[in-house]
């Protein structure tokens, strides 16, 4: 009789701990899923019509095409046989379990900042998704770039391994934001000038650059003349990151992807932490706008044609004075992303139009029509010149040749 009670008690106790362990597991997996969102793993590791995390997505680079890996827990073709140590080694050191070198297109240069606990959580999450048997497609790189030992050179120049070190002189919120932006968010992968070697020197981090192959300009996150957010309110920044639209501007192109697949899923505290950090890294003071590359008579002709085109084609949404109807129809007056030295983005917006991403905070976005088929190179140049130089905007004129060159920019 006593022993029966004892067995029952032991049984109850043991089911208690099993249930608790299970609970802990699901907590870790849920956190891992959240962190995988913050790292935007899905953007690269899922093909457009493919199953989640089976890879196979083509990444065109100046050196040839890379194909992303299957990171489902399939033992043969995915990472089913990997240990948490193996996974950490990839995230932290950019190496395969056997020590082989990984191409920096996998953003381990940023992920190295991720803590061991967060890496383990992401791994636990990846172990919990359905395994899919799908072989990795071999990369297609031009000679000599297929030789992985060349990665060593890149690593020497641009890679500094190490988890995020918090700055004790800053608030916990600032450090959290910095951890996310510099680490999982890998914002610097696009928002830095990519030099010919395919790397980002540390001193240039977040200084902005043209994304190779895609022909979109990722503006500087430190210069207030570009996308530096020094004079934005915290609310406008969190709106932009979470919903894709804000009173100051909207996201488009590759940044729409980032908001759609990653940033919209971050909770309010993390979003605010990123906003606080981003606002703080903006350099104080503004740069003097670079002077016009075009002769003045030519640029004043452009401006008057530009006004005609603008009033006919754009003012219905963006307003006669460029005031827009924010957040859905963005203002063009006093909009940094139009005035930047690089005119690539506004030219492409006019040619290709666009929709901000559909997000939980803005599920039914308004769109802008593409004008590639409606305006000549000259008209495109004129209207972009007009919006860059009127209403107090201090950008520079653009030429018909620049407009023409971007007609062939890839759309996906």
């Amino acid at each position, binding site marked *: 009789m006593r022993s029966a009670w004892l067995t029952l008690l032991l049984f109850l106790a043991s089911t208690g701990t099993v249930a608790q362990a299970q609970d802990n597991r699901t907590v870790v997996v849920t956190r891992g899923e959240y962190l995988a969102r913050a790292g935007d793993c899905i953007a690269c590791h899922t093909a457009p019509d493919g199953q989640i995390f089976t890879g196979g997505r083509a990444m065109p680079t100046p050196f040839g095409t890379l194909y992303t890996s299957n990171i489902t827990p399939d033992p043969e073709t995915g990472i089913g046989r990997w240990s948490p140590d193996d996974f950490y080694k990839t995230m932290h050191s950019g190496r395969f379990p056997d020590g082989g070198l990984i191409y920096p297109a996998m953003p381990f240069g940023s992920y190295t900042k991720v803590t061991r606990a967060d890496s383990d959580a992401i791994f636990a999450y990846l172990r919990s998704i359905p395994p899919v048997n799908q072989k990795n497609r071999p990369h297609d790189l031009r000679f000599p770039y297929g030789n992985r030992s060349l990665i060593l050179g890149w690593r020497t120049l641009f890679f500094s391994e190490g988890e995020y070190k918090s700055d004790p002189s800053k608030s916990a919120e600032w450090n959290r934001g910095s951890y996310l932006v510099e680490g999982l968010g890998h914002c610097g992968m696009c928002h830095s000038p990519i030099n010919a070697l395919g790397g980002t020197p540390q001193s240039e981090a977040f200084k902005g650059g043209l994304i190779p192959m895609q022909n979109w300009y990722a503006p500087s996150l430190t210069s207030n003349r570009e996308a530096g957010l020094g004079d934005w309110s915290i609310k406008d920044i969190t709106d932009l990151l979470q919903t894709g639209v804000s009173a100051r501007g909207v996201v488009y192109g590759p940044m729409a*992807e980032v908001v759609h697949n990653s940033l919209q899923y971050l909770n309010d505290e993390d979003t605010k932490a990123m906003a606080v950090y981003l606002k703080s890294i903006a350099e104080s003071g503004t740069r003097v706008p670079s002077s016009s590359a075009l002769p003045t008579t030519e640029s004043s002709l452009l401006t008057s044609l530009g006004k005609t085109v603008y009033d006919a084609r754009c003012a219905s949404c963006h307003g006669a004075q460029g005031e827009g*109807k924010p957040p859905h129809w963005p203002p063009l007056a006093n909009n940094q992303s139009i005035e930047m030295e690089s005119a690539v983005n506004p030219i492409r917006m006019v040619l*290709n*139009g*666009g929709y901000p991403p*559909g997000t939980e905070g803005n599920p039914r976005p308004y*769109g802008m029509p*593409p004008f590639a*088929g409606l305006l000549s190179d000259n008209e495109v140049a004129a209207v972009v010149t007009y919006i860059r130089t009127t209403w107090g905007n201090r950008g520079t004129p653009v030429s018909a040749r620049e407009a023409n060159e971007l007609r062939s920019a890839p759309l996906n």
Partner: protein
Amino acid sequence: MSLRIAIAGLGIGLSVQVFPVGAQTPGQPPDTMAARVEACTPCHGNQGEGTSDVYFPRLAGKPAGYLYNQLLAFENGRRKYPPMNYLLEYLGDPYLQEMADYFASQHPPLPAPVPSDVSQDVLRHGEALVTRGDASRQIPACASCHGPTLTGMEPAIPGLLGLRPNYVSAQLGAWRYGTRTAKAPDCMQIVAGHLTEADVTAVAAFLATRPAPENAAPVPKGTYILPFFCGSQPN
């Protein structure tokens, strides 16, 4: 004057007037689907009636399920037209459904049939394929799926009226070359695979000469039985 035509031609000047009164909050765009799909209208027309570009299809009045399937196919790359693939990439499926519903519920008149410049023989050949098919070459009549009046069937079989010959030829070609695919079994891939260039020219030309029937709406689901099962049309 020429400026006004330019504005009207683009549809932006006009569309401001068709928004229902009261939908506009000051400082905000009208809270309507019409305003949300203005990005589509330069190519598809204000109400989805099509434009003068012969490759830009009419959307108005097509079955909502069909339009939704097309938007999904553009979103995930099963159907390719880069300017559209790009626009739809990050919109989310429920919103694409709303866009499909919106264009399905528009009913601008069908365009008048266009006199054809192909010979009577070619037109007769087209008519035969559309209405009777060619059993010896395993070609079912187009009408057996697209409906006796060629107005399609809910939810996902489109009508074939109001489409221009260039567009129809281009789509049949896209199926033959695999750049347009629908959910398997992809009926049109099978049908198009049996057609020769001459067949394509003939059906495209014949279809364009058909006058609009009084009621151009797709018939309800289950009105007739398809000759074989199509993945995009649920049973």
